[in-house]
Structure formats: structure tokens, C-alpha cells
């Protein structure tokens, strides 16, 4: 009878707590979003599964000695996984559109207002009972507005590791929702005529420009913002591997096998942070709400900046490309292209929107560096 009792006590059924069951359902929700709705499946699938694993009672996945514990501490706590992913993103990024039209960097900069405005929102949420965000927490939440998954995870792991699960879920969910969140804001802030604007064709960019560009960006980061060099440095390394043309094997590995392997572990590691104690609270709701606000403000400020530039500059600029300033490569650029095509079927904005789009990646990495330098110390 004793052994039967011991056996019963070692089953999941005997040990389940309500929080664990709810978190497993959250994990299943993430699996549903990734499989049925195709929301950022590359990350949400392992993340959802990680959430289920970490909440299994008596299995100890996230305790010392458990698999997810080591994955988290080896790759996310150290910041290694998001940085390797950033290198892969660098190897996938083509800066031609940006180099051909450098003014679009201003759009990438403007869209970062979403990050800094959300800081205020996060601090204001402290008025809600049950929520207590420090400036570090607020900064880590605000970076969701950068619409850049690896950057958000990197910064959250440095500034607010206890909020990492909720921040990563919010960042990736909203990135998947870009085609739903952005178009109404873009239409509301632009006139029909502005959306119809066709832009001049971009000039061809030479190879030497593309090779020197990542080195120049790295040099500037070294001079002005060393705290951003982990992100920007890995990004530039990936991009240099791509553009130099002499290490195609490394470039291919960085943008395929390496980034894929890392994504599996990053997803699992983030999933391990989705435990009931860390996730089931009012703060998570606050983070989810702030994430949507951050995205919307980023989109709006990018569009408004593009409108202003269109009025001030001799060259015509379609304000829709401003929305692509919120990184989320290449989804945001595709959205700008799609909304442009609705207004004018002959208007192909994709290449023009890629400029602010990759500028947004640089912009959010710079913003993350600033937050690290000012708040992280």
C-alpha cells in the first residue's frame, strides 16, 4: 500500500498546482498561435513547448540540474543566444536600400520614439495596485517597441530577467501582429494622396560601399556607444561576412544552420521563464498592454516623421515607409508595400521601405545600448 501511495505521489496528477495547469494552457495557446495561426512559429513553437516542459510538476526542468535551467543560464542569462541570432540577422540583411537613400535612417530613428514613450507608460502603471516597475523593468519593457526579438531578449536578460518571459511573449506576438496593428494607424495618419506618392528609383550601390558600411557602423558604435557593441558588433560581423563575398560558407551557416539551432534553444530557454510565479500576475497584463502601445507609438512617429520629411524635402517620400522604421524585418516593409498598393496599384514601396526597416534594426540596437548605458549601470 505504501509503495502504491509513493507511486501516486510521483505522478503529475498528484502534484499539479493550479498555476502550473494555467501555464501549460498558456504554452498550448502559444503552440496554437504558432501552428494554426502561423504567428512567428520559429520562436513561439519552442517557446510554447518550453512553457509546457517547465511547468511539469516534479520533473524539475527549470531547477538546478534540469535541462531548461542550463539552457537558460548558458545562453540567455549570458546573452549569447540573442547575440548569435543577431549575427545571423546581420548576415541576412541587405543594406543597399539604406545606403542608396540614407535619409531613411531618420525614419528608423523616429520610430524609436515608441520605446522611449513607453518608458513613461511603464512608470505610470505603478499607479495600478499590484504593479511595481523600477526604471530597469520599465526600460526592458519599453524595448518591445523596438519590434526586435533578439534585442528585447538581450536587454531584458540584462535589466529585468524576472520579466523576460512576458517581454519575449509580448515582443514576438506583436511582431506577428504587425500586419494587423500597423495599417489602421498608417491610414489614419496619411491622406489618400500621400499614400499614392510614387518614389524615385534607388541608385545602384557598389560593393565597396556595402563592405565598408558595417565597418563604419561598428567604428561609430565603438566611439560613441560601447554599450551597444555586443549587439551592433555581432550584427556587423554577420553583415560583413555576407557582403565581403569571401566567406560564403560562414555567411550561409550564420543565416541558416546556426540561427536555426540557436532559435530552438532560445525558444526553449525563454519558455523556461514562463513559470506560473513569474507569469501569472498583473504585471504581465501591464507588459502585454504596454507592448501594443509601444508598437503603435513607434509606427505613428515613423509615419509622422516621413510626412514631415515629405513636406520639407524636394524629393517625394511616401509617408507609409515611415511605419517600416519599427524594425520587424521584413514584415513591416511588406505592410508598407501592401498599404501603398491599395492606394495605388502601380506603387511598389517594398525596396524603399527596406531602408527605414533596416535602419530600425540599427536604431533599436542603439536605443538598447543607450538604455543599458543609462539604466543598466
Amino acid at each position: 500500500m505504501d509503495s502504491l501511495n509513493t507511486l501516486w505521489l510521483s505522478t503529475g496528477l498528484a502534484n499539479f498546482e493550479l498555476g502550473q495547469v494555467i501555464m501549460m494552457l498558456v504554452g498550448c495557446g502559444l503552440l496554437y498561435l504558432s501552428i494554426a495561426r502561423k504567428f512567428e512559429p520559429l520562436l513561439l513553437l519552442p517557446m510554447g513547448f518550453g512553457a509546457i516542459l517547465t511547468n511539469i510538476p516534479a520533473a524539475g526542468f527549470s531547477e538546478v540540474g534540469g535541462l531548461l535551467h542550463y539552457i537558460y543560464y548558458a545562453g540567455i542569462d549570458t546573452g549569447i543566444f540573442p547575440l548569435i541570432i543577431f549575427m545571423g540577422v546581420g548576415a541576412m540583411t541587405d543594406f543597399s536600400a539604406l545606403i542608396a537613400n540614407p535619409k531613411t535612417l531618420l525614419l528608423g530613428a523616429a520610430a524609436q520614439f515608441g520605446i522611449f514613450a513607453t518608458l513613461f507608460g511603464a512608470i505610470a502603471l505603478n499607479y495600478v495596485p499590484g504593479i511595481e516597475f523600477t526604471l530597469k523593468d520599465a526600460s526592458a519593457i519599453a524595448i518591445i517597441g523596438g519590434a526586435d526579438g533578439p534585442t528585447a531578449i538581450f536587454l531584458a536578460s540584462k535589466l529585468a530577467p524576472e520579466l523576460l518571459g512576458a517581454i519575449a511573449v509580448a515582443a514576438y506576438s506583436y511582431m506577428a501582429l504587425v500586419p494587423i496593428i500597423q495599417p489602421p494607424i498608417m491610414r489614419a495618419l496619411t491622406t489618400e494622396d500621400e499614400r499614392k506618392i510614387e518614389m524615385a528609383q534607388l541608385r545602384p550601390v557598389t560593393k565597396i560601399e556595402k563592405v565598408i558600411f558595417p565597418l563604419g557602423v561598428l567604428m561609430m558604435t565603438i566611439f560613441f556607444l560601447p554599450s551597444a557593441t555586443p549587439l551592433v558588433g555581432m550584427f556587423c560581423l554577420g553583415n560583413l561576412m555576407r557582403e565581403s563575398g569571401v566567406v560564403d560558407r560562414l555567411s550561409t551557416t550564420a543565416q541558416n544552420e546556426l540561427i536555426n539551432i540557436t532559435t530552438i534553444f532560445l525558444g526553449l530557454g525563454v519558455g523556461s521563464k514562463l513559470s506560473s510565479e513569474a507569469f501569472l500576475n498583473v504585471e504581465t497584463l501591464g507588459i502585454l498592454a504596454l507592448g501594443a502601445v509601444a508598437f503603435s507609438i513607434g509606427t505613428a512617429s515613423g509615419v509622422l516623421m516621413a510626412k514631415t520629411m515629405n513636406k520639407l524635402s524636394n524629393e517625394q517620400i511616401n509617408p507609409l515607409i515611415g511605419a517600416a522604421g519599427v524594425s520587424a524585418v521584413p514584415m513591416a516593409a511588406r505592410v508598407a508595400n501592401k498599404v501603398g498598393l491599395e492606394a495605388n496599384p502601380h506603387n511598389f514601396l517594398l525596396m524603399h521601405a527596406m531602408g527605414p526597416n533596416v535602419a530600425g534594426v540599427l536604431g533599436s540596437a542603439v536605443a538598447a545600448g543607450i538604455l543599458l548605458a543609462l539604466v543598466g549601470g
Partner: protein
Amino acid sequence: MDNMQQHFIEAGTLMLAGMVFVFAFLGILIFFINTVLARLAIRFPDPIVTPTTRINKKNKSANANSGDISPQVVAAIGGAIKRYRTEHGQT
């Protein structure tokens, strides 16, 4: 409450400093692209090579797109021209 006010002031400073820095950083990058990169592009005659390779690439892709039909089309056109010429010559 004082604490909250302090937080708001800090957040405001952070926002101001952050936005100024992001614009300054990316502004310098624009300057870098417009001066250094533009000059490099002019000095090194890469751009002359680029259009020709582009045209080649386009031709290649056009061939690739049409696949196996392409040689047949060429042959058909060639045949038509030949026939036209001979017919034209005869009349």
C-alpha cells in the same frame, strides 16, 4: 508620490537623452554614407561593373525563367528570320 515624481523625471530625461542620441547617432551615419561611402563609390569604379553584371544577371534570370523553351524560341525566331530573308530575297 515623491518617488513616482522622481521616476517620471528620470523617465523623461531618459526619453530626451535617448531620442537625441538616436537621432545624433543615425544622423552621423547619414553624414558617413553621404561623404565617405559616396566618395568611395566614385573613386573605385565598381559602379561601372555593377550595371553590366546586372544586365548579365537579368539575361541569365530571363533565360532561367523561360527554362527549356528559350532555345526553342530562339531557334523558332532564327528560323522565321531565315525564311523571311529567303522569301524576301526571292520576291
